[in-house]
């Protein structure tokens, strides 16, 4: 992981966002996060899987077993209704904070 410190809330938000369009298995989620953040965030399994399990237990994600692109069994995660609501509220919250921080940093 590069210098950027991945806060837990940020990781949750990124996972929710990565799963917004379609269901994915763990490795794909990791790649997707790398892709949508332009390579800034690279989530390692040691952080990713605990987060996935935690979010599943919280009811934001549901998981099913399916075949991966190369026909191997894998656990696919998808957003639940609660997960979508969570994504929405976290996004709003993040935007508020980002705006506030940006304006704070921009102040002279």
């Amino acid at each position, binding site marked *: 992981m590069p210098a950027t410190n991945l806060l837990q809330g940020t990781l949750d938000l990124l996972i929710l966002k990565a799963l917004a369009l379609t269901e994915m298995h763990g490795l794909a989620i990791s790649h997707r996060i790398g892709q949508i953040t332009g390579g800034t965030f690279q989530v*390692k399994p*040691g952080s990713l*899987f605990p987060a996935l399990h935690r979010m599943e237990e919280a009811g934001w994600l549901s998981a099913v077993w399916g075949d991966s692109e190369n026909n191997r*069994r894998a*656990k696919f995660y998808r957003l639940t209704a609660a997960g979508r609501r969570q994504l929405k509220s976290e996004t709003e919250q993040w935007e508020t904070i980002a705006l506030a921080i940006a304006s704070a940093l921009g102040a002279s």
Partner: protein
Amino acid sequence: MPFLSRLASLGRNLFARPRVERELDDELRACLDQLTEEKRRGGMGPSEARRAAGIDFGGVEQVKEEVREVRTGRILEELLQDLRYGIRTLLNNPAFTLVAVLALALGIGANTAMFSVAYGILLRPLPYADADRVAVVFMRYFPRDFAFGTMCMRDYLMWKENNRAFENPSLFRSLRMDIGGKEGVPEQVQGATVTAGFFSTLGVHPLIGRTLAAGEDEPATSSLALLSESIWRRRFGASSAVLGQTILVNGAVATVIGVMPRALRFPGRDTEVWTNLPLNPPTRYGPWFYRGVARLKPGVTLPQAQDEVNQIGLRMMQQNPFYKRLTLPVLGLRDALLGVTLKPAILVLAGAVGLVLLIAVVNVANLMLARATVREREMALRLSLGAGRGRLVRQLLTESVLLGLMGGAAGLALAWGGIELIRAWNPGNLPLIDSVRLDAGALGFMVFVSILTGALFGLAPALECARADLNATLKEGGRGGGGHARGRMRAALVVAEIAVSLMLLVGAGLLLRSFVNLQRVSGGFSAPPGQVLTMLISPGNRKYNDDRIGLAFYDEVLRRARNVPGVEAAAVTDSLPPDRQGDADTFGIEGQTLALGEMNPIISDATIGPDFFRVLGIPLVRGRYFTDHDNGDSTPVAIVSEGFVHRFLPNQEAIGKRIRQSEPGFGNKWMEIVGVVGNVKYLGLAVDTDPAYYMPFAQTYGPRAFLTVRSSGDASRLSAALRRDIQSIDPGVTLAQFSTMEQVRQLSISQPRFDTMLLGLFAGIALLLAAVGIYGLIAYSVAQRTHEIGVRMALGAARADVVRMVVRQGASLAAIGIVLGLCGAFVLTRLLETMLFGIGVTDALTFAAAPAGMMVVVLLATFLPAFRATRISPVVALRYE
């Protein structure tokens, strides 16, 4: 929804753990495989790809552990895991577990039992409505001077007239009652006669029927009786037809109006019949038979009531110059039931038992510390495998709390046995013992104490374990890094143990010495107490109130008693030492001049038959005993005690002087003193002898009397024959309170015995625990020093040297503990001051014997491991690395 999801996860994590784990494994392996696949597609060889993927992934097991950490129910799961692990560890060390559980069981068991006793006697709500608002009013005055004495009807009426603090002041008197009637053979029971407000004051309701109505204590009311549940079942087969039936109470007819529940145990715990007390207008002061009981009006406190009653007491003194220094002590119902000596004794015992628990805890902490050394490697290994230190502390604490609970469970069994034992010990006169039982409160107390002790003795070793230095420990191969500091701590704990148990030992020693003193006190009679049988005879029928009929009856009783095989002598009396004091009265001496309003003190007076002194073996000092010729037709005579002569007729010839019972104006005749006898204790063994005067039964007859017989052997065997022979004179006669003088004696000192046995037991447990503690420490230290001892012996140290070395270690610890313990005892034994008889709180013998005994025990406990140390073979010891 999120809650339901959590709940489902919790269930899955706890109960479908294998599946959850398998799925986690599958998921992570799949991911790792995919990663490897990607690497290969990126152009790596198979093994290189696997290695690179492994590095990127970061270790399947670690990731699993991370996932487990965030699972719902993680703490619960860990707890279960710790418990399983703890049980396994404890089972793997049966010796350690057994010793620890036993020590804790003794400590917690003794505490739970003592808690139940203290709670039952001091705290458990009395079975009366708002019992803390009920007070008992006593009367104390000189020259009578009984701390919790009685008042007479005139005093009551004055109190009632001037009362504002209490609702409906009531009056009661305890007395023996002969109960007879169509329903069965006559029997004698404990009874009470009470005014109409008595039952409403206590707030008790009848099982069936009713209690006394207002006005049913007015002069002309017919006699009414209330029965206890026990006598109702015994004599009336629990039939409700008893209501309205008449029974004979002391020969007079009374109508049964109600049955009271078992919970009503007032005024006595064995009171079985309550009758109404008619408030006949008194014509004079006395008799002083009564105590008051009343409920405080709302908003009035006990001290306020006491203030008011004090004012009334002042008026009583103004009206009657006879009363000197009169006070009316007002006691809450519980304090009145407990008396003055029990509460401090129970508090002392509760404190002592707390110390026993402290010793048990120290003992187990010591064991844990010893084991911590052995387990250091295990802990270091687990730390290095990634266990968190917090997690280790938690696990060790779980283990010690588990140990505490095991000790508590075993202690509960001990407590139950202990309480049964205490109830059995109690010879029937420890008040409120019936409310002592093992209940939910005691159970809660036990669990609380168990957890607390578990945490207490587990905390220090647990924290230390978690602090352990990994590298040092692993390198040292388990010989223990923090050994030195830990050894010092263990030694300090053992010193504390010895000090505290010595304090208990000194306390128990003082009580024991005091009790032995009490046992040795002569009641003033020399007859072997096991060879004297006493019983209370009550003729029941009112015709015996006539002294001619009564005396003839008692002559026949004595004749038949003397004919019973084994009886050597028999006599009647209305008083018996050591505490069945019959009557007390003032007296006059012919020729004595007293200032106006002055009177002689009220002292014991006994009415006795001719052979009384011979039966009990009370020595004649001068003059003669009474004879059969001292009867209603001859000159009135009296005998006085040596104490009487010493105090009231000093330096005078007592024989031939004349004295008179009671005050002038009661028509009592002058009685000529014909003899002087030795002092007898009628007020209890621990009370200073009071002077007494005796009158012949045939000249001052009363219908109820004790029969005392002296036998050649064990007197208790005579009971059946005496009962049969006496009742064959008149089947209406009741006989009660059969007991040998030995039993009477023991009963009179049952509370000191209770205190002594309990404190002795506690001190014994403490001593045992301390011995185990020092044994453990020395044995462990010898084991640790095997190598050193081996070297010493190889270099020529004799066995005696080794023994001396080891014993010196134990003895020096004991010496420190003993000095500290003596200092503590010096301070703490002051609490025992009121419980001691015949010795001071710093009794030299006790303060010398207890440390000596302690030292012997310590040396014994040390000698065993010391002896074992001499068996160490140098060769083996040096190989022992």
